């Protein structure tokens, strides 16, 4: 009798510690979302994940993806992986996957029918290698937006432009009113991204694909692309004297009406929102610079390093499900200013700009973005070139285009 009691008690006490961690597993999640809007958005993920009974351990690394990625990669290759980590889906994590360091999510994806819920389908392509799925896309971010300050144009006494060409024409008026026509922050990726946007908007989707997908160096040196460089030269002149580094500082110039506009991805929207501004009233957004309305399906995704710990692996699955959950998708993307990865969610609360984006998405005007087409190496060379181009007024358009063609020629 007593003996039985003892074993029962023993069973209870030993069972408890097992039950405990199973109910609440700590999962460290690294990401580089540290600006105001971004932090608010990631908090939605954390909240939803904590609600599953696990615990989100936040591993934010400030700076930008460029600062954070090396740290994440060292952690993974150094044998001390986190529970989950953000990457831009596409080719950033390609080799980690090939080296077998990342967890294959195919079973989970089949069970939860990701291929059916994730829209547009091309998003999952960025996560797929050799037919297996390795990441969970969480949002669609498109670069091709022009953000304009209504107040700035009012002050300059010109109507808010409807496209890039009108904007360039309005630049002298802005300048006369003491307003910085275009804000481009000093971080290299901003200059390079602005060029890519001009490439799609001024050159067209085909031009973009011919250069970056087909890597046609001859074409990149040709007259079509020369037109784009001419536009980049305009942008360079308009952006002269932007003395800020971070992208959100540049956005802040637009928010406060100190600058007329900024070419930046839809993540800038989160900043307008945090500042309490309304789309259409305080600011205007022009997808594709008002010239070529397409949405690039770049974005963020979460990868899950292969872990030995069974509890943590289970928590990883819980997180993956949470990330794609319709409610979380809505809450997260509204704060982040990005578009959800599922077509079946209700975005009632979306503002004007997001609705524009959703419409374009619904029309199917999507294209791949540089994260999917180019290696990080090529992207970095591009960044070096364009940050030099934007900072150095005496660098000629011809020289820049020649160097650009060289980069395209050696691109991979």
């Amino acid at each position: 009798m007593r003996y039985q009691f003892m074993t029962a008690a023993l069973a209870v006490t030993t069972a408890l510690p097992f039950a405990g961690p199973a109910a609440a597993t700590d999962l460290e999640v690294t990401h580089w979302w540290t600006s105001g809007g971004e932090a608010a958005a990631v908090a939605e993920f954390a909240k939803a994940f904590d609600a599953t009974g696990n615990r989100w351990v936040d591993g934010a690394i400030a700076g930008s993806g460029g600062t954070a990625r090396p740290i994440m990669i060292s952690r993974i290759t150094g044998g001390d992986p986190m529970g989950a980590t953000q990457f831009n889906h596409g080719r950033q994590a390609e080799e980690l996957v090939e080296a077998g360091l990342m967890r294959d999510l195919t079973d989970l994806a089949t069970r939860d029918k990701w291929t059916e819920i994730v829209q547009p389908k091309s998003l999952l392509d960025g996560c797929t290698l050799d037919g297996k799925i390795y990441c969970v896309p969480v949002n669609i971010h498109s670069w091709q937006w022009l953000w304009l300050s209504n107040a700035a144009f009012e002050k300059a006494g010109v109507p808010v432009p409807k496209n890039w060409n009108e904007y360039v024409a309005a630049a002298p008026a802005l300048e006369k009113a003491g307003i910085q026509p275009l804000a481009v922050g000093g971080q290299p990726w901003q200059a390079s991204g602005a060029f890519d946007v001009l490439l799609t908007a001024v050159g067209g989707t085909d031009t973009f694909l011919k250069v970056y997908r087909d890597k046609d160096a001859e074409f990149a040196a040709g007259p079509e692309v020369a037109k784009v460089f001419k536009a980049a030269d305009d942008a360079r002149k308009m952006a002269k004297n932007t003395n800020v580094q971070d992208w959100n500082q540049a956005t802040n110039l637009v928010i406060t009406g100190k600058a007329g506009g900024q070419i930046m991805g839809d993540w800038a929207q989160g900043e307008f929102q945090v500042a309490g501004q309304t789309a259409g009233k305080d600011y205007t957004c022009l997808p594709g610079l008002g010239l070529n309305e397409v949405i690039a399906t770049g974005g963020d995704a979460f990868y899950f390093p292969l872990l030995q710990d069974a509890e943590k692996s289970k928590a990883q699955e819980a997180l993956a499900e949470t990330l794609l959950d319709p409610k979380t998708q809505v809450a997260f993307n509204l704060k982040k200013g990005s578009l959800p990865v599922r077509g079946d969610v209700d975005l009632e609360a979306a503002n004007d700009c997001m609705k524009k984006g959703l419409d374009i998405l619904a029309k199917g005007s999507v294209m791949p973005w540089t994260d999917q087409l180019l290696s990080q190496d090529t992207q970095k060379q591009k960044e070096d070139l364009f940050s030099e181009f934007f900072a150095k007024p005496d660098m000629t358009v011809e020289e820049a285009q020649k160097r650009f063609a060289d980069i395209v020629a050696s691109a991979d």
Partner: protein
Amino acid sequence: MSKSERPNQLFRNLNAKVASIPMVLTALVIFVGGSAWTVLYSFTNSKLLPRLNFVGLDQYYRLWSTPRWLISIENLLVYGVLSLVFSLVIGFMLAALLDQKIRFEDTFRTIFLYPFALSFIVTGLVWQWLLNPEFGIQGVVRGLGWESFNFDPLYNSSIVIYGITIAALWQGTGLIMCLMLAGLRGIDEDIWKAARVDGIPMWKTYLFIIIPMMRPVFVTALVIIAAGIVKVYDLVVAQTSGGPGIASEVPAKYVYDYMFFAQNLGQGFAASTMMLLSVLIVIVPWAYLEFGGRKRV
């Protein structure tokens, strides 16, 4: 000395050898091993992960045809020469001034030395702020009524490296001053007396008698300054992030950016091999003369 039963060379000074194991391991495994590993992989096309897939000298051809690398080298030369010369000159001058039996020597010395306690990250941030054209020195001078005053080194490609040098000197000269001061204090009073009796002017005494006598101090100072120059990285990152454009890039940043941001280990390793090579060419012969061999007189 230890003529025990075993005349084996290996066991002479056994304790000293055991005690030196950490040093030997560090020297061989980390410095030699790590460098060799880096050099080996610089001949491969390793991307995100190191792979032994040899491509000959491709990475080096690419390196030397990259404008950013060339700018980095040029910046390092300018920064290196300036900070070497000014650190030594300013450090020596300040030490000579403090050596004049002045009052409040401790106070002055602490003031000159305190920046050394601050990291390059902190130094970079403060000077970025001071040199900010809107709020900083330029803004203030303009506010005083001198409207055309221009001083924006961090936003002007052609002088940005000088802006970085100013910050580096602010941070580092204090330590050099301390070294020099220690050196000056170590010089025999009689030498000054003799020089005065012979009627040799002050500056000649310093230049031809005192400075040559302080050779070891200058050597130590040189090692410290030079090691800092090659490694300059945090300061640039904190102050300008290499900008405007790529005007203030330095080699160590190229290495880091290409290894990690660009996920092109091969290219980063090639750049670090070049840095290593230049360090070796300059340092090794000198280090052997200075520290190697038997005790000099």
